[in-house]
């Protein structure tokens, strides 16, 4: 009898999470929970100013405080060739500043002391003399002739430009515009946002002089990349470096890069020969670590008057802060921005991108997004909204005409991606029905007659997930594949390790479900471990929704290797040839006699006790999975709002989400990811952003300024499901962690702009705070959110 897959916690089971058992008891093991014998504590001194030359640093007063063991400055780092480190985008970043500080919050010195309170005291006792320089807070200031050069440390860096980049077919696009009946334009700023996981970054470096081994417990979404980087930068032998990511209190891309604090704690441990713990405070996290977005997007769409999209010209001007530290595949200078319009049958497109240095924190991380895809899809859906209006067409109808049809797959996008599957029209239909789209126009008109402003916003997109294939995707030259290692013990229990790194996604639960699906070993019998580079196979970590598309595929593939060996053992046990064996979940049987069979557990025992002659004992293997292509989940989000014309306050009346992320391993976890993503979308649309004043002070440096929605503000969500399996993924999954964050914001903005549409308002930059909405509805003008900050924001 085949097993009931749901009962053993296989594919499709809303299995309750294994990791919850420790978290609900307060027994999680986050980096700050780890205490090592003899551990010292490190605190960083940060620059209070955004751009200044360092004239002097006097640390003598810090050393006078009892309990201070070591004070590190840039000069001391430079003496060890560690004052600068490489970024993930082939630039350099200061570890501790030597010549200049280039953004507010930049790391200037570090104190290592017996206690974190003493370390903080001692930081205050360090005297730094700064000579202030002109400050640049947006790319338009950066590109002005004669503006102060921020990166005067780099040779051949005459101005503040980081890169010029283009992609697409310019000639074909020009031709499309020449043939257009209507040309529609859109221009907006996607504001700087910080992923802001609840837990900040931190590390405990523990260098053991006796063994020569360096162990670093740290908040990393990609521990193997860290190990490789430490080996190369610190010139330590890779086998003597062990990176351990314990439980992470959220990541969202913020914990992908390597930060100065990690590097300094490592050197401090080497120098003191004691474990050194560094735990960043919230302000340090917000003002210095990887941000997302901060891109100015401009574009125009060529249209035929019947609504057909003909071509798209797009330009991005991006603000990278003081160091180009984007976490992205190296081939692409502005991530996967060219995934814009991938869901639409668009014949021609061209993108020009230019990036600039500013006196702001470095980053450009994939904040709950697959490398700038959030900006791409936000612009796409804002552009589509404006184009439909310019044509006088219904928003849903305009999308329906232009979305790629089910029978057009595989579909080559205008920018060259290959999408593989989807039922876009079906998702649109489900969403329209759920939001009450048919009756909406009448409802809106009726509400307007009573002075109420109703709006519906739609956002539809497909997102490229699961980087990479190794042909096109690498980070610092390391190809983007992933891995899994599975050991089945003799009693049929198992341990699985992957190169991914959970930070709340539930890998401990869901990876075991893939094993259960492939082998029939109950999920409860499978332990999952990640994050320790001494034990886990090499992998690229978890970000860009790549775990299920890549590491999850590796789990399925390694389980299939195990099954192939078990089949040979089964043939031996059943005394028939392998060709006469059939598989059903959890069991091999003789084709001619279904009653005669052995379970996977029988095979496991035999692998250690009764293997066929000549067979290598044991039942374990590993798999490195290099995906043939990206995966392309689709989402359609619908938001209904009411704007208060007196105040500009807007309330969300309903949110409908239709997600097609392919096969769902654990529907409960998938829905959790979607709701979490929608909340971050709502956050960015309504309140969450970072801006800067003209002196480069970061506004949004703590949770009193950096507003995050609570349970009170956050709307409820209605979720719907469509399943189109990914044709090339072993279990048909596509990835889901970020879809809602990527496509959600445009649904909120489109809804508010729709409510104000009759006033001629085309765009309100996020976040749509009441003062901005009020200004838009009283002036009928578009609202820009470009820094430096305006009064009232």
């Amino acid at each position: 009898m085949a097993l009931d897959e749901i009962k053993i916690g296989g594919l499709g089971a809303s299995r309750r999470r294994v990791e919850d058992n420790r978290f609900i008891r307060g027994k999680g093991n986050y980096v700050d929970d780890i205490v090592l014998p003899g551990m010292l504590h490190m605190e960083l001194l940060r620059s209070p100013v955004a751009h200044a030359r360092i004239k002097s640093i006097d640390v003598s007063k810090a050393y006078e405080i009892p309990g201070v063991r070591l004070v590190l400055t840039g000069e001391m780092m430079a003496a060890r060739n560690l004052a600068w480190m490489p970024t993930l985008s082939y630039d350099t970043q200061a570890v501790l500043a030597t010549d200049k500080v280039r953004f507010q919050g930049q790391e200037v010195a570090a104190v290592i002391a017996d206690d974190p309170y003493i370390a903080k005291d001692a930081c205050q006792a360090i005297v730094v003399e700064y000579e202030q320089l002109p400050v640049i807070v947006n790319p338009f200031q950066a590109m002005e002739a004669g503006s102060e050069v921020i990166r005067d440390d780099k040779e051949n860096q005459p101005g503040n430009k980081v890169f010029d980049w283009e992609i697409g077919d310019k000639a074909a696009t020009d031709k499309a515009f020449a043939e257009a009946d209507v040309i529609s334009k859109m221009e907006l700023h996607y504001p700087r946002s910080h992923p802001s996981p609840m837990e900040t970054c931190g590390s405990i470096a523990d260098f053991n002089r006796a063994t020569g081994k360096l162990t670093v417990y740290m908040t990393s979404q990609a521990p193997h990349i860290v190990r490789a980087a430490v080996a190369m930068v610190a010139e330590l032998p890779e086998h003597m470096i062990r990176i351990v990511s314990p439980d992470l209190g959220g990541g969202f891309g913020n914990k992908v890069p390597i930060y100065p604090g990690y590097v300094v704690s490592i050197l401090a441990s080497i120098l003191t020969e004691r474990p050194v713990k560094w735990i960043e405070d919230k302000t340090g996290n917000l003002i210095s670590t990887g941000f997302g977005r901060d891109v100015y997007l401009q574009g125009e769409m060529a249209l035929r008057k019947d609504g057909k999209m003909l071509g798209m010209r797009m330009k991005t001007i991006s603000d990278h802060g003081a160091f180009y530290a984007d976490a992205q595949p190296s081939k692409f200078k502005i991530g996967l921005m060219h995934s814009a319009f991938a869901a639409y049958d668009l014949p021609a497109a061209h993108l020009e991108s230019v990036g600039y240095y500013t006196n702001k924190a470095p980053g450009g991380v994939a904040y709950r997004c697959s490398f700038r895809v959030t900006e791409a899809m936000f612009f796409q859906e804002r552009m589509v909204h404006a184009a439909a209006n310019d044509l006088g067409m219904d928003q849903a109808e305009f999308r329906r005409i232009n979305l790629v049809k089910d029978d057009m797959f595989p579909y080559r996008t205008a920018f060259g991606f290959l999408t593989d599957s989807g039922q876009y029209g079906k998702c649109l239909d489900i969403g329209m029905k759920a939001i009450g789209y048919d009756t909406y126009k009448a409802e809106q008109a009726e509400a307007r007659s009573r002075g109420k402003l109703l709006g519906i916003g739609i956002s539809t997109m497909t997102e490229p997930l699961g980087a990479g294939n190794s042909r096109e995707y690498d980070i610092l030259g390391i190809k983007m594949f992933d891995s899994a290692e599975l050991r089945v013990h003799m009693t049929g229990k198992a341990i699985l390790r992957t190169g991914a790194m959970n930070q709340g996604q539930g890998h401990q639960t869901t990876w075991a479900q893939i094993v259960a699906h492939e082998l029939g070993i109950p999920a409860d019998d499978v332990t999952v471990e990640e994050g320790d580079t001494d034990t886990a196979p090499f992998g690229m970590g978890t970000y860009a929704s790549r775990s299920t598309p890549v590491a999850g595929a590796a789990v399925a593939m390694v389980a299939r290797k195990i099954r192939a060996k078990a089949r040979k053992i089964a043939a031996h046990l059943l005394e028939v040839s392998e060709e006469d064996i059939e598989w059903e979940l959890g069991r091999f049987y003789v084709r001619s006699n279904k009653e005669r069979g052995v379970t996977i557990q029988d095979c496991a025992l035999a692998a250690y006790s009764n293997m066929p002659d000549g067979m290598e004992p044991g039942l374990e293997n590993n798999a490195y999975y290099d995906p043939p292509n990206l995966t392309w989940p689709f989402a359609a989000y619908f938001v209904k709002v009411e704007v208060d014309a007196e105040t500009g306050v807007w309330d969300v009346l309903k949110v409908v989400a239709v997600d097609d992320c392919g096969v769902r391993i654990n529907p409960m976890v998938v829905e959790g990811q979607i709701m979490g993503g929608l909340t971050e979308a709502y956050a960015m649309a309504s309140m969450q952003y970072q801006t800067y004043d003209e002196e480069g002070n970061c506004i949004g440096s703590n949770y009193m300024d950096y507003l995050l929605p609570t349970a009170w503000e956050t709307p409820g969500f209605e979720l719907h499901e469509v399943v189109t399996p990914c044709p090339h993924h072993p279990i048909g999954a596509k990835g889901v962690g970020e879809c809602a964050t990527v496509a959600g914001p445009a649904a909120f903005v489109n809804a508010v702009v729709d409510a104000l549409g009759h006033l001629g308002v085309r765009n309100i930059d996020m976040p749509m705070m009441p003062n901005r909405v009020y200004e838009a509805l009283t002036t009928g003008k578009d609202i820009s959110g470009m820094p430096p900050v305006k009064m009232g924001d």
Partner: protein
Amino acid sequence: MTSLYDEVQAAPGEGVPTRRVTIKVNGDDRTVDVEPRLLLAHLLRQGLKLTGTHTGCDTSNCGACTILFDGRPIKSCTMLAVQADGHSLETVEGLASASELHPIQEGFKEEHGLHCGFCTPGMMLAAKALLDKNDNPTEDEVRWALSGNLCRCTGYQNIVKSVLWAAEKMRAEAK
């Protein structure tokens, strides 16, 4: 007895003032010597090794450090340890008995009320403060009671369901 100073130094350095504080934590009396400036969250985490109480934002906004102080939810990251002298505290470690989870803990697992788990202890204690007073709250009452606690992962909807699940179980058990 314990103090702010862990393994590095058995006792505070010369000239560092200390105060003796007696608190009841999860039912046990604890007497500790602390620096007057020591935050309560740090006493719990480093001094008493109760690391289920997390410090998230340092400014009372996120609620990861929420504990019950004489039954009321407070943010332990912005309270001094000396202010707790003579008071009774409950942390996440006190929620479950040796053999049984509290219904709130069960609810969070049943309704998928957590992802990364960092905000969870604070969320559960804020929920307990509500349910101890009102075991039949509306969704709005739950949302309001949790509005001092931030979560970046879940989107709150399942946290609210978790608390309502617990309320139902607590009502059934009270019968």
